[in-house]
């Protein structure tokens, strides 16, 4: 469904992504793990064209093109079919929880306001925040903000949702409520690509784990394989370190 080949990105001569290829199938829940600075965020941002790639090919939602040859329409198509949940939520500060969700529906998708509100309420219900619909982001806790962020993404019914460390800005006691929502989404068949440091999530919820380091995909496979029997030394070291710190 989403196929990336040879994706490259560098900042000021520093190669950050050194040729990444990923294949996301419908219903996949993919966890991307790896040390800080390995390029996980950059990967999600270049695929969604929030950052310009320096090379590579994408086939997705009818777009089949080199990253560097994407035109405005391709970019719009790509973004329209990918939902994005940001590490620091990025809710629209001047909009209520409900408006955060209806905004894209009304402005970008041209859905009627009443219809958009219905969709938004349904999305808020899925994340358990119907009672906070009229609150502004500043009146919500971090966990609640992130759940609105998730509701905003699912309301647009994208083909795949990207999560960039959705819980790492949260206080430990608020992580659970967000992970729970993500698990529900995964169970209902939503296609998800999740950059995460939550090893439990990677192990228990995803069907594939990708380990990235230094701008490469070092190895990928089922959670069982990666966690119990990694073939690469780097993966082993990373997992030993991170699991020792939990």
């Amino acid at each position, binding site marked *: 469904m989403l196929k990336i080949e040879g994706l490259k990105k560098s900042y000021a001569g520093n190669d950050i992504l050194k040729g990444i290829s990923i294949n996301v199938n419908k219903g996949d829940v993919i966890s991307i793990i790896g040390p800080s600075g390995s390029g996980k965020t950059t990967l999600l941002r270049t695929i*969604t064209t*929030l950052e310009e790639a320096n090379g590579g090919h994408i086939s997705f939602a009818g777009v089949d093109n080199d990253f560097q040859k994407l035109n405005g329409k391709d970019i*719009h198509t790509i*973004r*329209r079919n*990918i*939902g*994005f949940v*940001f590490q*620091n939520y*990025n*809710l*629209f*500060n*001047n*909009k*209520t929880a409900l408006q955060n969700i209806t*905004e*894209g529906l009304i*402005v*970008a*998708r041209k859905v009627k306001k009443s219809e958009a509100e219905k969709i938004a309420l349904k999305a808020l219900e899925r994340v358990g925040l119907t009672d906070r619909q009229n609150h*502004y*982001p*500043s*009146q*919500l*806790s*971090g*966990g*609640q903000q992130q759940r609105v962020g998730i509701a*905003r993404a699912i309301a*647009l019914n994208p083909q795949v949702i990207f999560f960039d460390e959705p819980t790492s*800005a*949260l*206080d430990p*006691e*608020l992580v659970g409520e967000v992970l729970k929502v993500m698990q529900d989404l995964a169970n209902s068949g939503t296609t998800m690509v999740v950059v995460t440091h939550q090893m439990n999530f990677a192990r228990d919820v995803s069907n594939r784990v990708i380990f990235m380091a230094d701008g490469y995909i070092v190895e990928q496979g089922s959670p069982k394989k990666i966690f119990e029997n990694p073939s690469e030394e780097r993966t082993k070291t990373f997992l030993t370190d991170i699991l020792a710190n939990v």
Partner: protein
Amino acid sequence: MSLDTDFMVKVAYTAIHGVPVTLKIVLVALLISLPIGVLFALIRIYRIKVLEQFVKFYVSLIRGTPIIAQILIVYSAFPSLLNTIIGKAAFDINPIYYAYIVFTLNSIATLTEVFRSALQTVDKGQMEAGLMVGMKPRQTFWRIIFPQALISALPNIANATLYLIKNSSLAFIMSVKDITAIAKTEAAFNYNFLEAYLVVWVYYLIICYCAEVIFYLLERYFSKYRRPTKKTTGFNWLPFSIKQPEIEAKTDLTESERTNHAQN
């Protein structure tokens, strides 16, 4: 020394005709310079070629010269410039137009800087979030970024307006009949300058106070999305009272949610 109170009342009556003049200068200058200030700020932020250089030059030109010099230059340059274009009619132009020009040009420079810094306070994640829900950059700018920038700009716009009100008193140099000019003329008959200036002083005080109240209300209305904190020391309604107005605090959050938010 005693004040001639009868004279003060008389000046107050005549000088009140200058109030609309002062207000007109302020409003015209503000209404024209607000949109242009936004435009210039955008030119600087998006670093639009050539125009960026122009805006930079313009802003430093205005900010680097005293307003009195700007007034003198406009007032001596424009009439003769117009004279060559439209002939003698140029000297019949109501001098208030020159005041409009000077104070607008001046406010544009101030407001460009005000909007530039306000726009930069809006997190760039707001734009990215807009793009990722499928909105165009322009739509995201006007619906998400600009409203937030406007609110954080309000205190500085208020400041700029107060300066504008006070600076407009220099319009008398261009023989505009504003509050100051009228009072001066009255005073010149009997040399009651102190009385006349005290009246001027009170008028400006009242006008500035009203402007402050208006901006305070605007700010309060538009920042409804910001979490009201307990006992905000907002604008003090009564200039001579010690009591601060209390703004209702939102209390339906649990303590842990509060602390959590504070850390984010």
